[in-house]
């Protein structure tokens, strides 16, 4: 998995490529922690090139959402492919997190 981070209009956009699973979640968690420690309080998880997310990947999203809530920040997730959308539906995360169909729509909602 690869993660690249860019700033767009005050939002830290994390672009994920590959699979966010048990093996790759620790690296993702480190990146999120680094962003939060650096003062980011608007984070967009862009899953345009993410193939799959497992329960350990969901845990990273949940932990980030809680940290953002306590710091009055905001996080969103966008560009879910069919497989990732199914994971969100089965787990109920589709109703827990704020989702957008694409990056433009997500950025407009911050």
């Amino acid at each position, binding site marked *: 998995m690869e993660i690249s981070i860019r700033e767009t209009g005050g939002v830290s956009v994390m672009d994920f490529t590959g699979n966010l699973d048990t093996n790759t979640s*620790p690296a993702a968690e480190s990146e999120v922690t680094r962003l939060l420690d650096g003062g980011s309080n608007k984070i967009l998880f862009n899953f345009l090139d993410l193939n799959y997310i497992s*329960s350990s990947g969901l845990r990273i999203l*949940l932990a980030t959402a809680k940290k953002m809530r306590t710091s009055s920040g905001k996080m969103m997730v966008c560009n879910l492919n069919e497989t990732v959308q199914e994971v969100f539906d089965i787990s109920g995360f589709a109703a827990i997190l704020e989702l957008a169909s694409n990056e433009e729509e997500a950025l407009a909602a911050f």
Partner: protein
Amino acid sequence: MTEKTTKSSVAMFMSADLSGSTAFKSQAQGDGESPEWLEAFEAFYREVPLIMMGQIAGAFAMEDEVPHSGVWKVIGDEIIFMAHPRTPREAQLLTIAFYRTIINHDRKIFQRWPLRIKGCCWAAQISDRNREIEIPEMLGTDDNQAYVDFLGPDVDTGFRLSARAGRGQVVISSNLVQLLAGMEEPEGIQFYYLGRKVLKGVYNGRPYPLFLMAMPDCMPETWEWEEEEDEGLIALRRDVPMESKDILDLLGRIQSYLNHMCHAGIESLEFS
């Protein structure tokens, strides 16, 4: 194999086990390239961890943090989750999340295949009595993430206890029952006492107090002909849950007796 030197902590283990899978595998061969049972197993391994994470999100909705948790082992028809609760409250919420996962997925899987799910939830104090070790020889480990295993009598108890769970039920270890029954806010958790049963190698061969967990807003789906052959379902349908003070009294007496007579070293869970 390296012993991790960590301060005392509580580890929780939660087992989701497919019931009826052996018969199903022999019956559901299908007529295509992939047998029907394989689809059921793939769904089980894929969906249960996702549902568990969703239930954790729901249970911890009002909390600021979620404890570290995830799939610890997959053994045959069984998925075992592990978590490190830092407080009794976290242990309570993890137990609720696991219970709801079992009951909800039991209903779901039964609608699709002749399979059921049963659960077991237990805890171990990781200190002198139970140990956490790293096993660098395990496949899948790398420089950053060693495979971690847990050894000790309270870890083993769960594996014996899980065999006592019936379809659509969650059995729970006595140390966890003691912790949860002693909490001021029970959050709807109830316990049904099924009496004491000998679990091989547990409690120095003395009978172990067997408890089922229940939540009135999330009960297992059952049928009359199942009730007649399952003492757990009979208890859930016909008995009343045990009062917390009676649970604490019973478990306190058992603990005192075994520690005095058998040097069993049974201790209540403590959070640092």
